[in-house]
């Protein structure tokens, strides 16, 4: 298993009148080919910003630091033209809302072939053939007719499949899927997830799956990284992180999941609201909501500490971390 993308100390901040405002604060992770990498956390935790930073699609005004090495080249320091060529061809992205992520006025054909023709220099005929292939691959019935259609003629699930087809068109090596199922019906969700999984396996594609829904990750992801307030709080193989979660935040997320075997058990939501970038508390950003809070939590940012095979965690209260830190 080879590491495709290696992100180290990724930081994103906005320059404001009162100094830099960190959004993502020193995130590191690795993604391997043929694997699904899960990035979890509540909204506002910086997951999507992290992904956008990797593609170079941050909103105007955002500044970045750190590195993201793809095949020995650092995405973060690339020149803009070069960076653009990596988009679609090496790193592609599928967005959350299939309703608004497709251009409402352009045909599916146009949206599916324009980058084929631009990026890969295909002729119109070649691009159309490839488009039919792609639509077949994502299980769109009657792909030739679908090409002539417009997005509003398709259901949400179909649109998400089309989005995935668009993302896959130039055969990228990393597919970033940002909440790909959140806006869809539960029945449709499973189909999309199965599709992602199959593609990952068949094409040796690395998938970065961003979601707030740990349930989705537990079924699909090989590794999981949990973010809170712009920082990684816990990461490791899915089985460890999800099955034996240690960080109070991760545990809170897991407890808030509906449990299939205990439908009668009440869900336990995490108390309080997640902290936005403007109001992040000092120390461990989670401490105001944490049941296990101790005085040091409010002063020092806890470092990520490796606690067992592949797992890292940032919580000074955890006895295991405490013992390792000592």
């Amino acid at each position: 298993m080879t590491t495709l993308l290696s992100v180290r100390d990724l930081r994103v901040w906005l320059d404001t009148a009162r100094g830099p405002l960190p959004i993502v604060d020193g995130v590191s992770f690795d993604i391997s080919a043929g694997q699904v990498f899960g990035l979890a956390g509540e909204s506002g935790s910086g997951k999507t910003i992290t992904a956008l930073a990797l593609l170079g699609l941050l909103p105007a005004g955002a500044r970045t630091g750190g590195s993201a090495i793809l095949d020995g080249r650092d995405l973060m320091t690339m020149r803009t033209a070069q960076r653009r060529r990596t988009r679609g061809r090496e790193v592609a992205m599928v967005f959350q809302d299939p309703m608004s992520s497709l251009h409402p006025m352009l045909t599916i054909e146009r949206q599916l072939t324009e980058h084929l023709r631009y990026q890969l220099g295909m002729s119109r005929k070649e691009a159309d053939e490839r488009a039919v292939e792609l639509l077949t691959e994502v299980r769109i019935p009657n792909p030739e007719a679908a090409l002539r259609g417009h997005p509003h003629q398709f259901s949400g699930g179909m649109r998400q499949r089309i989005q995935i087809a668009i993302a896959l068109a130039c055969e990228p090596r990393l597919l970033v899927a940002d909440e790909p199922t959140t806006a869809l019906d539960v029945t449709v969700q499973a189909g999309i997830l199965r599709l992602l999984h199959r593609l990952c396996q068949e094409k040796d594609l690395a998938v970065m799956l961003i979601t707030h829904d740990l349930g989705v990750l537990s079924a699909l992801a090989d590794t999981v990284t949990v973010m809170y307030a712009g920082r990684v709080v816990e990461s490791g193989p899915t089985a460890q992180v999800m099955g034996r979660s240690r960080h109070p935040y991760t545990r809170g997320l897991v407890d808030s999941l509906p449990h299939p075997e205990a439908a009668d058990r009440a869900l336990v939501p995490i108390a309080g609201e997640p902290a936005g970038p403007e109001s992040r508390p000092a120390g461990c950003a989670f401490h105001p909501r944490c049941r296990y809070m101790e005085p040091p939590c409010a002063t020092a940012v806890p470092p990520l500490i490796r606690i067992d095979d592949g797992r890292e965690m940032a919580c000074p209260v955890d006895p295991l971390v405490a013992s390792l830190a000592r």
Partner: protein
Amino acid sequence: MAFVLTHLVPGDPAVANLGDRASADPVAVRIYREHFGLDKPLPVQYFVYLGNLLHGDLGESEQSQRPVSTDLAEYIPATAELAITSIVLACLLGITLGVIAALNRNRLSDQIIRVVSLGGMSTPQFWLALVALYIFFYKLSWVPGSGRLDAIVLPPPHLTGLFTIDSLAAGQFDVFANSIQHLILPACVLAAFNMGLFTRFTRSAVLEVLENDYVRTARAKGLPELTVVFRHILRAASPPILTVVGLAFGNVMTGTVLVENIFSWPGIGQYSYRSATALDLPAIVGVMLFVAIVYILVNMVVDILYGIIDPRVQLA
């Protein structure tokens, strides 16, 4: 409607249009009234007018003593050439500036463009025309003076009445160059207001579109920025811009009155001005009908374009 409004204006066309002494000569006044049917009661005049209108007859201008339709046919091409050129210029400049402003929201270039567009919208056209003529003709000699052609240049053979097209069709490239030189300055002056208008509307329309996820999708495909801007952003922003461009034909029609006057441009603007000052009722009604037809046609074209641009719009 137009007929009634114009006939409600106080003032007697016969007395206003005849000479100082002839207006006091009952025979001259009677001949004038009989000639233009003004001796009949107003309702009769109206039905006569309507009847003629059905045959495409707009009546006879009291000033030129020619059929209004002949007059209009003479003046419309000049105005059309000027108005279309100015709208095209305004679109090119206004939309480009609007896109630049939106993409650089609140940066320096946005502020500069805001000043330019507000300037274009708030500068009186009369003043602008004179200043432009002074600077570009008198000081810089970039353009020739007023008129559609230099005084010594003969117009090209009549085909469409648009000198640029007629001269090309006749292979008279020197005449073509001359007509373009004469066209550019009045067209720019006439375009100033709409340029500002289009800039403002394009900016806000593009800003709205920029919020949409599909713009990010387009960028995530690695498309070059120009493709993203023109194929994705502008396409999505075009319906509101199109509406404004359609309305702009109205501004241009009013603008021609002043601009044609300053630049000695023999078009509908001058014609309507002269007709209004002379109470030339058939001519005024003719111009109003023409403007109404332009409005209807432009609206139709805009509606059709809506359907082409946005497949979700169903043509009723």
